[in-house]
């Protein structure tokens, strides 16, 4: 958003305000859902965010992108409402997990001369054999969305911004104050779980193919 647009807001241009709100709604709502027990609460968080954005508009210095600035306000509001300390460590980084699910572990041999190789021939289903209409279905996207919703919060923050919203690593580090290394760890754990959920869902079709 440019300086001109900010002036339009100050002039009372409702069209400019609507455009701004709609441009950012999906991102803000998805972020809000991470901290909210319901869609209704997430909507309240988005509403509170926009009112805070308007009140703080004069303080927007243009150092961060407007998107990052608005999202930071939302994350602060959402965490406060959820009773989460903003500066707390992302504890899931500290969990002693590898980037594998237990199912991945089960399929990799733990001992013997072929330590670390896949059991049998395939790591999991070959999804290229899944019928295309199923791969393209809304149902499959719902499986992905549900898997993301079930992730620990810090993993869900990172995968939502990086893989769903398409933010760069630098933007996500800036918004969440998580360094590049920790971000990669969180992203990989999150992707590992989502892949597993998809594989669990698709495996029956693969076997039947």
């Amino acid at each position, binding site marked *: 958003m440019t300086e001109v647009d900010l002036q339009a807001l100050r002039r009372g241009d409702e069209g400019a305000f609507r455009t701004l709100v709609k441009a950012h*709604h*999906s991102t803000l709502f998805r972020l809000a859902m991470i901290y909210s027990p319901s869609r209704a609460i997430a909507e309240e968080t988005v509403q509170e965010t926009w*009112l805070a954005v308007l009140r703080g508009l004069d303080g927007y210095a243009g150092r961060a992108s407007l998107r990052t600035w608005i999202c930071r306000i939302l994350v602060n509001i959402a965490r406060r409402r959820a009773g989460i300390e903003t500066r707390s460590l992302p504890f899931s980084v500290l969990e002693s997990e590898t980037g594998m699910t237990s199912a991945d572990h089960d399929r990799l041999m733990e001992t013997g001369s072929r330590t670390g190789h896949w059991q049998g*021939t395939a*790591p999991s289903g070959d999804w290229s054999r899944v019928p295309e209409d199923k791969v393209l279905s809304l149902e499959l996207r719902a499986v992905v969305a549900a898997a*993301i919703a079930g992730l620990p919060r810090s993993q869900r923050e990172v995968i939502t911004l990086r893989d*769903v919203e398409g933010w760069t690593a630098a933007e996500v580090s800036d918004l969440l104050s998580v360094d590049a290394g920790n971000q990669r760890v969180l992203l990989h754990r999150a992707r590992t779980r*989502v892949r597993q959920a998809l594989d669990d869902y698709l495996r029956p079709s693969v076997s039947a193919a």
Partner: protein
Amino acid sequence: MRKLECHDLVGRLTDYLEGALDPDELVGLAAHLEACASCRTHARQFDVMLGLMAQLPVEYISDVLESNLLTGYREWLPGVTV
């Protein structure tokens, strides 16, 4: 250089995609993928998953929220110095 195994690949796919592998690791990973059909399957699944996540349906604003926000905007305006 230690030979790269399946569990290395499974654990480091994101590091690879993020450009966080050093040149030695990159060569090892490419060589392993070349040799291991199972890991190629795993990597393809990663691709499909990334495509699905990038295409999740967008969230549209509800009429109630949009109307509440316009009300908030109109109430904010009088205090603004243009």
